[in-house]
């Protein structure tokens, strides 16, 4: 399965990321609540993961040889759902059911409702712990060729539970875990460095025994390279600190922490879709 995915060219992946962003805007506007900035900023990372990096089979979500993906910051569910739909886990038309009564697309991901989810998340800080448990089990079963990817928010790292897990992963040298921190520098109350300073984030992870890679998280090529490099690091778990632009692709959302936890209204959604379709004015005609 994974082999066929590698046929996507870089421009094709970038186009896919943009389509995912458009769907995120449509979903959020329709839902009337939800998080905008994080999902838009993560679209490139998710595209790289689901269309190039992950070994998975959307038509057989329980495939025993699959890699495992966990979204620790469950509020970024819109980018997860949109990417999964594009990858073929479920029909794209279902995306508009986000946050609706009876939907499989709960406001925060619920494992038992939607095939392809490895864990329920929402309350922050326990994705890495679950990944650690999975990695310990895979080691017992001699399945260490399966990789475990965990996306966490940066603000999420305020939660102490993360650091308990970070220590455990280092202790047991869980090198098949690849953590990706969405370093977008915002959280609900403001910039991360104002709310609760995280820097020097690299030094913190290194001091806790992890190998650190820093990249531009909106560069799909860089995401793919970083994951390839992470796989070459043995004996230590690897964290990719992915610097992303919150609200990426929509000018009036970019870098603005006010867009962390709110959706666009209809007018804002139309404007956002226009920007995404014209690549922020770089091309003249809107594609669909």
């Amino acid at each position, binding site marked *: 399965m994974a082999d066929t995915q590698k046929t996507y060219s870089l421009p094709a992946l970038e186009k896919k990321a943009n389509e995912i962003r458009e769907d995120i805007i449509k979903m959020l506007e329709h839902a009337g609540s939800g998080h905008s900035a994080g999902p838009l900023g993560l679209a490139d990372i998710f595209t790289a993961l689901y269309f190039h990096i992950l070994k998975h089979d959307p038509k057989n979500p329980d495939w025993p040889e699959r890699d495992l993906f966990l979204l620790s910051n469950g509020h970024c569910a819109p980018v997860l759902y949109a990417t999964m739909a594009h990858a073929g886990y479920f029909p794209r038309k279902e995306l508009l059911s986000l946050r609706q009564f009876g939907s499989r697309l709960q406001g925060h991901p619920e494992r038992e409702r939607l095939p392809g989810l490895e864990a329920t998340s*929402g309350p922050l800080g326990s994705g890495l712990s679950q990944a650690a448990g999975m990695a310990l089990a895979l080691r017992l079963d001699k399945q260490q060729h399966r990789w475990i990817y965990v996306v966490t928010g940066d603000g999420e790292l305020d939660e102490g539970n993360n650091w308990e897990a970070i220590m455990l992963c280092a202790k047991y040298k869980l090198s098949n875990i690849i953590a990706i921190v969405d370093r977008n520098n915002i959280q609900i109350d403001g910039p991360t460095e104002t709310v609760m300073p995280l820097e020097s984030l690299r030094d913190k992870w290194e001091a806790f025994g992890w190998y650190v890679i820093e990249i531009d998280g909106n560069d799909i090529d860089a995401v793919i390279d970083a994951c390839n490099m992470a796989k070459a690091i043995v004996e230590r778990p690897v964290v990719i600190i992915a610097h992303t632009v919150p609200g990426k692709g929509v000018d009036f959302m970019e870098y603005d922490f006010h867009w962390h936890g709110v959706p666009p209204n209809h007018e804002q959604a139309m404007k956002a879709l226009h920007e995404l379709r014209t690549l922020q004015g770089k091309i003249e005609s809107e594609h669909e």
Partner: protein
Amino acid sequence: MSNSTQINEDISAKGFSIEPMKQGYGRGLVEAGKLYENVVAASSDVTGSTGTEPFAQAFPERFFEVGIAEQNLVAVGSGLAAMGKMPFVAAYGAFSPGRNWEQIKTTICINNRPVKLIATHVGISDAPDGATHQMLEDIALMRVLPNMTVVAPCDSLEAAKATIALASYNKPAYLRIARDDTTVITTEKTPFEIGDAYVYRRGADISLIATGRMTRYALIAAEQLYKDGIHAEVIHVPTIKPLDNETILRSVAATRHVVTAEEAQINGGLGAAVAELLGENLPTPMIRIGVRDRFGESGHPDELLKHFGLTPHHIAMAAHHLLMDHSKHKH
């Protein structure tokens, strides 16, 4: 009087074997480890004092030490279960579920992973350590969670049986066990099934419904009541959730009087569960024996049990009180 042959015949006798429940847990876990290859265990720097040590020695590769980190402990358990393992994660009840209730709710209960949470030192059994280490709220905390099963054995033999049963039970579950020496009142032949309550003594006048170590005290109270001419039925409830409604309702329909007894807060505990059941199905005069909405304090276990009104005497007095009240109303 008693027609039960399921348990030791004279529970007040001296010279009964006495053993901390954690040793039963430890034996049960090793046995479960031999029976089921997917059984694994973890602890948060309390491997010895939770009884996990024998398993850690028997199966070193299947034991994980997470350090003093109870949030991590249970979420790691969720990850292990996600990959088909049957994790037993042990800590003092004061810290798990005291510290990590949300992780239990999200990563185990909503996520529906069959993690086994082992809480030791529950009730007032961590007596000298005082209020911070005495876990009286755990039954309420765990009972309120959908998908969760709550088990509270009465002695080390039953703790071992419960542990083995939980190892093939494919749902989240919570096992609460006391710290200190506990008189063994059951035998190898005493039945244990998750979800079942057991009549340990038959009687037609009042139902004494107890869990954990208080079951022995209910039996002693029943003996005392018998001398006073009152025939008390004693029901042991090792599974608080799901409650064995049928056994309880059958007994109470006959006796029409209830005293519950538990080493926990009366708010949200076994007494509350029984009151909820009876309130909706068979409203019955009842008294709940338990800690009445206050925190513990340092002392000797026996001193504290007396202080909080958790003795056979208190159970017997409650029974007298109910039956006297009732006869007043009748005449």
